[in-house]
């Protein structure tokens, strides 16, 4: 059970909901409801936006492919024992 109530996308203002469209584009998946992490990051766009841009810069075109970087992300998450 989450510590906080994760707000539905519809509860966010229009400007912030654009972040959810970017999230769907990033994952290439049409979510019924944006992932909980996307909605958490949307709570404070002054944190979530630069955090998301840093993530996308790290995972953007470079020496490793997006798929390779996703595997690095999964391994880091597993090492941190994070089930999310």
């Amino acid at each position: 059970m989450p510590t906080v109530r994760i707000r539905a996308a519809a509860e966010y203002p229009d400007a912030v909901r654009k972040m959810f469209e970017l999230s769907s584009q990033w994952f290439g998946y049409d979510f019924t409801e944006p992932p909980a992490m996307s909605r958490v990051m949307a709570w404070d766009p002054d944190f979530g936006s630069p955090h998301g841009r840093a993530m996308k810069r790290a995972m953007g075109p470079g020496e490793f492919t997006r798929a390779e970087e996703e595997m690095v992300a999964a391994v880091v998450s597993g090492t941190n024992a994070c089930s999310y």
Partner: protein
Amino acid sequence: MTPDALWYEAAFVTGITNALNVTADALADLLPPLDDATAGADAVAVFAEIRAFHGGQVPAPFGALAHDPAYLAEVWKAWRHAFADRRLTRRLKTALAFAVSLTTRSRFGTGFHLAELRRLGVGERGTMEIIGVTQMFSSYTKIADTLQLESDMGAIAPVDPTPAPGH
């Protein structure tokens, strides 16, 4: 190539990386590594294989394991198999090992796998990509844990229906 096979390879790299890191970081001052001059013939033969695989180096933890040559030989076989080019490239496996070492704050592993990444041709941009992904997902995971978020993205990946190897 099956999708699950890729993840098994990644998991084995993660595990054996952590195994060597804990040996290196915990025992560095307690169990001095043996070398060609101090180890027995069996261990020296393993050292030669390690050098051939790792650009002429024998990472210190393997030297520590040489106090039990039979154990060293088995750990080395598992390590070499885990890091070999198979479905995942050795370059990617080394990147995974670097990320695991950073995440677990292993001084040995971070330095060793960074040197290996460079030896395998990864440049500064690639290194920063791995550092960035490691940092950002160390952040996401702690945010998720702090808020006790429940996984809600498992459905975006298809399940691999293929049987276990050999069946």
